[in-house]
């Protein structure tokens, strides 16, 4: 008997709450924001958390010429020869189906065929296993009952995430991979504890414009950004807004500068 989608979502949220802040990436966080490598360590740790919550996951392994678009990779693309993530049997109107828990790729549990379908190979090889299989393709690492190997893998890719966040590209996500959504005026990045001011001009003064700043670099645990808005009447008809943003954290943070016209 499968679990409800709601329960699967709760378990997804449970593991996703362990996401690493890119620049600090302290143990025991999970480096979901480094999609390039280390999936078997993430999958084993996710299975541990799901089993500790009283549910029984499995794993799905996919092999092929895998190419996945990702805004968490500066080139906007990850290329894999295989990948793995936990699965849960979910009750649906057509019977129980495996749903995949993979916060590196999705924001919620997805049916297995959806997970496999976005990985760019029209004919991949899918192999389901129990949660006890740590590494399906390297015999010396087949099992990791003590999670010692898991912790080594997670430590390695926490370091990779930190090194990337410290590079010129900054922390994920990467703006070159993103399109500005409706109501997004600009993308920005702030260094740790820094304050910087942006301005945007040519707004009709008759409009009532509301400005907000939204972090796009995940880092749970506390507020990341604060902002204040000042206005300049630049002409009889137009105004300029000055938005001052402060990074409240010791990590680099990327954000969207958003507006809403209220009248």
């Amino acid at each position, binding site marked *: 008997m499968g679990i409800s989608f709601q329960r699967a979502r709760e378990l997804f949220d449970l593991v996703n709450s362990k996401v690493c802040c890119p*620049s*600090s990436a302290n143990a025991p966080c999970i480096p979901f924001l480094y999609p*390039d*490598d280390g*999936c*078997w360590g993430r999958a084993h740790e996710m299975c541990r958390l799901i089993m500790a919550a009283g549910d029984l996951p499995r794993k799905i392994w996919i092999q092929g010429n895998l190419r996945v678009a990702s805004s968490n*990779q*500066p*080139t906007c693309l*990850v*290329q*894999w*020869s*295989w*990948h*793995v993530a936990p699965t849960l049997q979910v009750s649906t109107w057509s019977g129980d189906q495996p749903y995949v828990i993979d916060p590196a790729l999705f924001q919620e549990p997805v049916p297995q065929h959806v997970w496999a379908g976005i990985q760019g190979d029209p004919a991949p090889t899918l192999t389901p296993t129990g949660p006890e299989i740590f*590494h399906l*393709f*390297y015999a010396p*690492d087949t099992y990791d009952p003590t999670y010692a190997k898991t912790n080594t893998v997670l*430590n*390695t890719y926490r*370091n*990779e995430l*930190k*090194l*990337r*966040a*410290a*590079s010129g*590209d900054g922390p994920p996500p990467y703006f070159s991979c993103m399109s500005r959504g409706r109501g997004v005026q600009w993308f920005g990045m702030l*260094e*740790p504890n820094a304050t910087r001011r942006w301005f945007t001009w040519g707004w009709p003064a008759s409009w009532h414009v509301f400005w907000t700043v939204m972090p796009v670099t995940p880092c749970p645990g506390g507020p990341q950004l604060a902002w204040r808005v000042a206005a300049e009447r630049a002409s009889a008809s137009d105004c300029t807004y000055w938005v001052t943003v402060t990074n409240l954290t010791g990590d*680099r943070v990327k954000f969207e500068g958003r507006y809403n016209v209220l009248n």
Partner: protein
Amino acid sequence: MGDVTSLVDTIATIEEAAPEQLKARVRQEAGQQLVAIRFAGGSVGVLDVSASPGSVWASVLRNLHELAQPVYVEINPATDLITQVLQPKLQPVGAIEPAENRADMRVEFLRSHSRHFLRRTHPRYAAMLQLLREAQAKNLSVWVTDSLNTHEILDVRPSQTSGGKSETR
């Protein structure tokens, strides 16, 4: 003479306050907090940990020092400042085959699901390819450093040696 020395080695000590002669070479500015990294092979690098990226690099270097794992650093020989930090990984070698562009090689590492590339334009292409093939044939692991985003192989070392070699480019 190039302007960067790359080095793969384990860290012997991390001195939280760099000695005066190293500070002088760096021409320490106000607000900088300089840390000296001494490597097992005798090389020294200096890191400003008062700001990113130095503060983040320092946390990675401390972690790899605790684990007695090698690190890859690039050092400006004129100042001894560390200008890049990367993390070598101990990898068993799988398939080695031509990449899609036919010029380069695509290398499979058995403890990685990412695709890694050995570019023919790398000055040590032939030597690194030979090391990879030997490791593959003998079922040995090698220390591999690749680039942060494109996973181009920058350095390959046998696992049983402790590094310490440097090159200038």
